[in-house]
Each structure stands twice: as C-alpha cells, then as structure tokens.
C-alpha cells in the first residue's frame, strides 16, 4: 500500500500546514493536537482559518494570541471553568480576526455535507437568531416537501484543507484509532487532507481487530501520522490521561495580558524547542 507518511515529528506535521489553510480541529476533549499547535506557533504560521468542531479552548486561544489566525468559524471558545479565552476575546473585540459565529450542530452539518458530497445540509433551529442574520453563506428556504411555509436553514458544505487532531493509536499501515470520537472521523472524511499525531504506536494492523475497527480511520483518509506522546497536553486524551488543570489555570491567567501570554509562549512553546 501507498501508506500515509508515518512517524514524522510534530514540527514536520506543522510544516505541512500552509499559511492560509482552513484547519478543522476537534473540541478540547476530542483529541486536540497541542504539540502541533505549539509547532505551528514556532514556525510562525500566518493567516490560518480555524474551523472548530464545534468548540475550542486553549488551542484556538494560543493560535490566535500568537497571530497565526485570520479567521475562525466556531460556536464557542472558552477556557471553561478556568474562565474566558482571553486572547480570543481580545482579538474579536479588537477586530484583529474575523469571526463566523455558529451553533454546534451547524458546524457538524457543514462538515457532513462535505463528507457526503452534497452541496448543503438542512438544519432545524437557528431561524430568528443573530447567528443566522450574520451568515450570508447560510440560506433559508421553505421546506419543499411541506405543503406550505415551514422555513428551514440550508448550510453549505465546508471542506477544510486540513483536518488536524491527536489520536490514541496509529499503526504502520497508516490506520488511526480515535475510538468513539466521531467528530474526528467526520473531520477526516470531510477534509482534503488529514494530519494526525498519535499517542501510541499500535503493534499490528488496527483493521485486523474487530473491536478496534469501529473506531479506526483507514489510510485513505490519512496523509501523515506523527508519533507524539503526550501530544494533547495540557488537554486530555480519552483513555490515556486527564487534562492538566494546574497548567490550564496558569495559562488562563497568563493569557489575560499581552505580556503574560508572551511569557507563556517563551516558556512553553519556544523554550521547549530550545531545550529539545
């Protein structure tokens, strides 16, 4: 098989993501590729367009704070119990990034349209919201199958240039196991390319184990795989480790100010590389 390129470094993965790319990323407990996120900041990526599936936390906030992002489509960026995502907040308030506000199932639907190769997906709800009022790319029609009336929103297919996530296992054939994280499967199906870091190498072929099969993304959807232990840190990886709450609280505090954020990057992003 012409397998995906495997066992690159996180920095090599980051180098495959061009400036300006539309990048789909899962929510914070869905396998966020944080090691690649740091590598993107190190390589001074520019003009990225983030598409969160459907929300994000430190990943989006760091990329925005570091100036890597021009635009974000999301239904929420927050540090959760650790407070606001302050770099995101500042950038939106100051207008240094473009925001496309959505609601969670709309983001899924946009990807599902791409996954299915249809130009749009219908979705209930949304009508009468200012989310809807501010989205020129969303359209309302009267349900053609109803006798009359019954307005419904159509969402256009969104095909990210890159799906980027961190998964529990990868094997040498290029299979990637995400378990029950269907949003990662959806992202891989919907995107033009899929770049993955994996926590552990699976010895053997993930496709050979019936129990793993349901949670495995086959090589046709996978372009590159990097082996990055602790690759989701400080976020969690299902079945492997919990999030590092102490660190996230430290980040949320640091990110309140420009100086604090810069110092955080120096220590945890650039410093880390210098020490490597």
């Amino acid at each position, binding site marked *: 098989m012409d397998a995906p390129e495997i066992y690159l470094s996180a920095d090599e993965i980051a180098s495959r993501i061009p400036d300006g790319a539309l990048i789909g990323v899962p929510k914070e407990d869905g396998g966020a590729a944080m090691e690649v996120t740091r590598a993107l900041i190190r390589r001074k990526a520019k003009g990225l367009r983030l598409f969160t599936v459907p929300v994000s936390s430190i990943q989006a906030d760091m990329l925005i704070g570091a100036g890597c992002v021009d635009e974000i489509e999301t*239904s929420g960026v927050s540090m959760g119990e650790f407070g606001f995502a302050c770099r*995101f907040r500042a950038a939106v308030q100051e207008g240094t990034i473009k925001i496309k506000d959505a609601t969670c*199932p709309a983001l899924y639907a946009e990807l599902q349209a791409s996954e299915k190769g249809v130009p749009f997906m219908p979705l209930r*709800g*949304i*009508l009468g*919201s200012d*989310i809807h009022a501010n989205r020129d790319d969303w359209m309302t029609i009267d349900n053609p199958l109803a006798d009359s009336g*019954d307005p419904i929103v159509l969402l256009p297919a969104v095909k990210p240039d890159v799906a980027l996530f961190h998964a529990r296992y990868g094997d040498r054939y290029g299979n990637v196991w995400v378990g029950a994280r*269907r949003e990662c499967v959806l992202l891989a199906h919907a995107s033009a390319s899929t770049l993955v870091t994996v926590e552990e190498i699976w010895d053997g072929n993930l496709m050979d184990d019936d129990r793993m099969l349901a949670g495995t993304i086959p090589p046709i959807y996978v372009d590159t795989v990097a082996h990055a232990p602790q690759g989701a840190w400080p976020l969690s990886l299902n079945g492997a480790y919990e999030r590092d709450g102490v660190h996230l609280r430290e980040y949320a505090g640091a990110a309140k100010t420009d100086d604090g954020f810069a110092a955080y990057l120096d220590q945890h992003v650039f410093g880390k590389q210098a020490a490597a």
Partner: protein
Amino acid sequence: MEFSREELLICAVARMLDGCRNIAVGTASPIPGSAALLMQALTNGHARASILGSNVHNPFNDAGPELFDRAGQGRVDAFFLGGGQIDGEGNINLVGTGPYPNSDTRFPGSFGSGYLYFSVPRVILFREEHSRRVFVDKVDFISAPGWSPPDVHRPGGPYALITSLCVFIYDRDNHRFRLSGLLPGATLEEVRDNTGFDFDCPDGIGDIPPPEADRLELIRTRIAGEIAETYPEFARDRLGWQG
C-alpha cells in the same frame, strides 16, 4: 429542617423536571446536574440523567453530533442554558455586548443554544447573577430567540428561568416571563430593581417551596455521592459530601 441555597435550588429545578424521560445537563452545571440525578433516583431510573463530563452518569457515547441528533429525534426532554444576557421575551445572548462582531465584551459563543432552544421541549434557563447587566430589556445579540413565528417548526423553547433571587415561568403564548416565587430573603422590590425587563407578577408572590424532607435526605446522601464524580468540590462544599 435547615437547608442550603443549593439544596433549595436543586429541589426547585427537580420539580420542573417532573415527567421528563431524558434530561441532559451541559458543562459547569452542578445544580441542574444534581436535580437531574435526583429525578433519576426518585423515578427509579425512568427519568435518565445524562451529565456532560461524567463517566458514570452519561449513558451515551456522545462524541460528534449525537446529542444534537438525539434532540432532533425528540429524545431529549429537558436541557439547561444560561446567557450573558437574557431578555424579557426569552431571547438569550451568549455572544457579546455592544456592536457585533467587535463586541464591547465578547462572551465565548452560542454553543448549541441556537439549535437546542428550538428542539428541547423544556429548556430551563439557569443564571444565578440577577442584575440589570444580565436581565436586559433587549439582548444585544440573539444567540437563540425565545419564541418563533407559528410557521417555524419548534417543538422546544424556554420553560423557566432560575436566578439567585427568584423563579420565573415562561409564558409561551405571550412570550413573557411570569414571576413564580422568591428565594428566601429576596423581595419583589429587589427583583424589580435588578431586572431590566418587564415581567408578569401575580398577586401574593411568596417564597418558593422549601425542599421536601425526603428529597433533601436523598440529596445529602445518594445524590451528593453521585454528583461528586463530576463536581467533587461542589459536593463537598455545598452538599456536605464526605467522600
């Protein structure tokens, strides 16, 4: 019998969940979560609580769009939402104050509200800060509208609003909140002073009912232990959990 504010609110929420089969609770919601678990215990599991973030009390493999699909199928009977701003028609704003998109104060975002507010029959708004900053005459941004014209397919919508001062019930026919009861120590005047929207107020508004003794006992024993799995500090500090 003595009870805490949290115990009172858990019981107030639980009464609103009466008859619900599937109760979903989002993040950072220990009181709604406790109320959902209470109803699950009281109905011997006929009511199912799914607590986001719990490994035990979340009988779903919920990644991806499944929660939203489930709501669209009519399999979510109750859900909880908050709001940076909430207005008198039940519109909620989770996006920001002032102009859009460059808000004066940007909130995290609308999350699932723009969908779940339409699809879940009983959405309970839970917002403890009772101030004119939060409860405004008109929200600056509608993440999800409180009501929709009759031609819009909408099985769901707001059911009640619970604050640190009082409980409102939402009148779907008139798109207005109606004061239903006060929390102990709060006065009608205090509610009026701190509410930026007009609301209906029947005569003789009193305090909301105190916790039922048997439910209070259950909260302090079984429910405290169950909610502790997701919210240990809350269970320890507010419900006296000893685990």
